[in-house]
Every structure is written in C-alpha cells, then in structure tokens.
C-alpha cells in the first residue's frame, strides 16, 4: 500500500530577479514500511523533494497524497498539525535547541499535543532509549558528541511515532563510525515499521535502502519503480 503518492510535482524558487526550477514534473510513490534513498548531485532537487514530501514546503504545482490525504491544499495550521502527526524530520545539522536538555529536546514535538507532561516525559525517555541515549537525557547538546546529537535528533523525530521519517543527509556532519551507527539506527527503525526517505551523498549507504531514487536537474533519472533489498551495515 502506498503511503506517499506524488504526481507531477514542480517547484520553482523565485527570488524576484530570476526563477530557478528545482523540480520538474516528479512522479513517485513510496510504500508503507519502505526505506528510500534519494541521491543525486548537489542542486538536483533532493532536499526540495524531501521537504515537499514532509509538507514543510508547498510545491509550486502537482499533488502530494500521504496516507490517503491530499496535503496539497491544506491550510497553514493544518499543515503544521499534519507534520506533527505524520512526519519526523532529521537534519544534517541536528538543530537541537541549545538551551534545552536532550530529554527536553526530544519532548519538544509533544508540547503542542494534548498528552500529559508525565506521558511526554515517558515517551521522550522511550525514544531516547531507542537511540541508546537513555542515560544522557539530562545533558545539554553542547555536552554531547556529534553522533549523540544526531541520535537525539532522531529520537526527537520518532517521539510522536510518525509513520514517515524524513532524513536530510543524517550522516553528513558525522565521522564514518558515527555515520554507520546512525545508519544502523535508521535501518532498525525501518524494521520497526517507520517508512524512511533519506537524502544522502554517500554511495556506501545506498545498499541499505530498499530503493534508490536518483535525481538530476530536478527530474528522476533512475529508480522510480524498482525495489532493491536492504544490505547490512559493515
């Protein structure tokens, strides 16, 4: 069953003086539980596509359906609620609030929900445990290593238990060992049922995905329909 269906997605960045077409009629579908890697050279439209699939950026034209819901024409507040319930983001630069502890950073997406503070804490502890950082919840981001910060960011992305996890170069700022650890974690989360779409520049991680979609100049050039088997992290 398709979790994501994207039809004729176009996106233009218009700075006023000149317009840049980042995506050109992209069509794709991603099944529930799939692990998809978006690859391609810089400026090929990977991050833009990821952001549109995550309902963070509104496509200039085209239709995006997630879990049967047409998110194309949702209002601003509805899009925020949708992101809260359906999408978890992991960024290359971690983007942790420097003034909150690891546990509080993980709790942040729960602030806007109706669940009690006690339950928020419980869920955040559970998410931290999933990424192996249950003992470091009281630390500030500055007191954690780069790998640990990225794992906190992953915990924050999954604390709401969203069906869709989007990762934009999650290993881009990490060394090989930490990168491999993060990838193992993502693979594990995928096995637990999260659908994952990941942007990566690192060809070593492509085999870990079920499917690799290659973009060039804003269009899919490879992998729109094929399914590859996930490999193991060495």
């Amino acid at each position, binding site marked *: 069953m398709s979790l994501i269906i994207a039809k004729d997605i176009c996106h233009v960045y218009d700075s006023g003086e000149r317009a840049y077409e980042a995506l050109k009629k992209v069509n794709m579908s991603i099944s529930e539980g799939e692990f998809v890697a978006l690859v391609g050279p810089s400026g090929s439209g990977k991050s833009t596509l990821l952001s549109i699939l995550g309902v963070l950026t509104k496509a200039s034209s085209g239709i995006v359906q997630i879990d049967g819901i047409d998110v194309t024409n949702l209002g601003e507040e509805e899009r*925020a609620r949708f992101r809260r319930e359906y999408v978890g983001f992991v960024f290359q630069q971690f983007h942790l609030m420097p003034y909150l502890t690891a546990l509080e950073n993980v709790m942040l997406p729960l602030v806007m929900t109706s669940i009690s503070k006690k339950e928020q804490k419980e869920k955040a502890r559970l998410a931290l445990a999933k990424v192996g950082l249950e003992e470091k919840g009281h630390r500030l981001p500055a007191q954690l290593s780069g790998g640990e910060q990225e794992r906190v960011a992953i915990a924050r992305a999954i604390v709401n238990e969203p069906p869709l996890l989007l990762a934009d170069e999650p290993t881009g700022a990490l060394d090989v060992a930490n990168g491999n650890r993060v990838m193992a974690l993502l693979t594990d989360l995928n096995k637990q049922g999260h659908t994952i779409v990941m942007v990566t520049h690192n060809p070593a991680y492509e085999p870990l995905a079920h499917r690799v979609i290659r973009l060039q100049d804003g269009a899919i050039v490879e992998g729109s329909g094929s399914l590859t088997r996930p490999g193991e992290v060495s």
Partner: protein
Amino acid sequence: MSLFYFFRKSIERQWGRFLLFLIGITIAVAGTLSPWMISRSMETALADAFDLVGANMIIAPPPGQYDMPLDVVESIFSIHESKNIAVVSPKVLGILDAPEGHLTIMGIAFDEEIRLKRWWSVEGEWPSSFRGDVPPHRYNHMSAKNLEEERAKWQVPEEQVLGEQVTGQQLQSLVLGRSLAEDRGWAIGEQVEIAGYHFRVQAILDPLGTEEDNMALIDIALAAHLLERPEQLSMIEIAALCATCPIEVIVSQIEEVLPGYQVEAVREAAEMRQMIIGRFTVFSALTGFVVAMAGIMLVGLTAAAQARERQWEIALLQAIGFGRKTVTLLLSAQIGLAGLLAGLLGYSTALGLSLVLWPYLAPGVMSPVTFFYPLEGLLTVLAASLVGMAAGYPIFSQTAKKDPARLLGSQ
C-alpha cells in the same frame, strides 16, 4: 513540557542575550522618560514659582462704590471652578486716628494674606490666626451653611475693644509697614493705642517698596468694626493654585456671579505664566516624542536582530509541528516580556536619573518636585511591552513565512 516551560527555558538559557536586549530597551525607556519627567517637573516648579508672586485676580466693588458685602466671598466659592481657587483674601481699607496722626489701616485675614504673599518677611512674629480660635484657610471652601457661623465671628466682643479694660492677653495684633514703624518710632512688643483701642506691635514688615510700607495691618473683623463698616469689604485678592488653573475661565465665572463688580485678572503675570509654561509643555512633549521614536526604533532593530539570529529556531519549530502563528506569538511574547521588564527598569532608572539631574538643571528651586507619576508609570510599562511585541511580531511573522527547509538548510 508545557509551552510556558519552553518559553521560560529559552529565556533562562539565553539569559545573557536576553539581558542585553533588556538593557537596550531599558535605555530607550529611561531616555524617553527622564527628559519628560524633568521638563514636567520644571513646568510644575515654574508654576509654583509664579504662584509665589501672589494674586492672580482682584475683585473690587462696582464703579462708584467703596465697599462690597461679605456675601461676595460666598458667591466666589459658588462658581464651577472653585476647586481651583487656592486663596481668597478679603481686605478692608480705611483711615483711623492715632496719637501721632492718622493711620492708613488695612484689615486682613492674617492666615490668608500670608499664604498669598509668601515672599513677605517680617521682623517679629506674624499673627497666627483670627483671634486664635478659627481654623486656618477659613475662606476656602466656605459653604452657605457655615457663612452664618463665620459672620458671627465678625461680632467683636465689647470687653475686648474697650481700651481701659484690656489685659495683656486681650491686646490685638498689629503688623506695621517698615516706613510707618520708623516714622512713628514703634518697635516690636510695643503697645499702641489706635482709635481708643490697644494693640501690640507683633511684627514689622521688611521693606516692600509698595504702599504696605506705610500701612498698619490689623485683623479684618476688628478693622471693619473700628471703621464702622461691619461686614463690608474694600477688595478681595484671589490666587489660583496649580499650573493648569484656567485663570481666564475663573475670572469670567466670577464676573457671571458678581455682575457689575470689577473682576480683573493680573493679566501680565497670568499671560507670562501661561506662555512660559506653555513653552515648557511643548518642549516636554517634543523631547518625549523624539526620544520615544528613537526608543521604538531601537526596540524594532533589536527585534529584527533577534529574528535573524533565531530564524533556524523558527524553522525548526515549524518543522516539528508548531503553527506559524504559535511560533510568531511565542517569540514576540519574549520581546513583550522583555519590554515589560524594561518598562519597569526604565521607569525606575528615569526616576533616579531625574532626581540626580534635577539639582543641576534647576538649581535653587526649593519647591518640592515630584517625579513619580504612577499612571504614567503604568502606561510606560504597558507601552514598552506592546511596542516590543508590535515591533517583534511582524519581523517574526515574516521570518516564519520563509521556507523552513531553506532556513534549516542554510545552517
């Protein structure tokens, strides 16, 4: 974790930055308020100084008449603006026989007269009150009800005015003009007989350069009795008290209740007072406006800097499911809170600054000057908070409208 907790944490953990922001707005608020406080206090001090000059209005009987009845005082207090009347000082003028020649007598209410002529200084002791048993300022807020009571006090007991029966305690008070005292050779404490009644020289006025230098001042009721003009007044001097007193309005209202009487504002003094105070008011308003504009700009610039610095935070909060409005309000509220605190701090700083600067800006002004205006203080705190929020909201809102993906990617 609640939204408030997140709000508090983001301030606590960025205390240094918040403090800098706070100091910026505090300086803006203090810079706006202290010139305003000082010029407003100068305005008050100036008005007080003008009030020291004496009467603002003089009432005389209708042309061709020499006296007017005591009831006139009651009429003065019946006008709408009576709340702005500070002193009403009635007088009886006449000439009496004395052993060494005629004396120009001015019957006055001692308490009222000295309140009106605050620059007078005397050798000796100024008589304290009307026969020692009437409360001071008895002409203020006198109603029709107690006028009868007042009138009764004008009946001077027979035993007190019979010269051969008076004792030391019953001697009447006499204040002399300096020239008169020197001409007659009368000194403080001396007993003087005037028109068959015994007086004690209680005070001698320092030279004034006016007609009072040659006058003898006695109690108004006794003067009316001795001059055989009971309950009659020769003139009334009136002073309005405050900086905002509408003297011209008071004059026209008195003219309405006393048709035919000669009611004159001491125009020169009144006009000069209004003109100078008016200039200060304009100066005060202009200063406040210019510095307030600078303050608002400072708050706006600080909010803009905050928005630039925190744009990835704005984007991240949106990415994890915060609505655009929530994010904008959350960050604007932080600026608003800073404005609230800065309003309080700024007001206190301005108060302190004004007190420190006052002696240098207005040396020698002895009148008590108050810088604390509670209502304005409250308005300042609210305004600082609102200006902070109003300056921050559009900037944060604009940042929140940018593509969060690009803002997060730019880090």
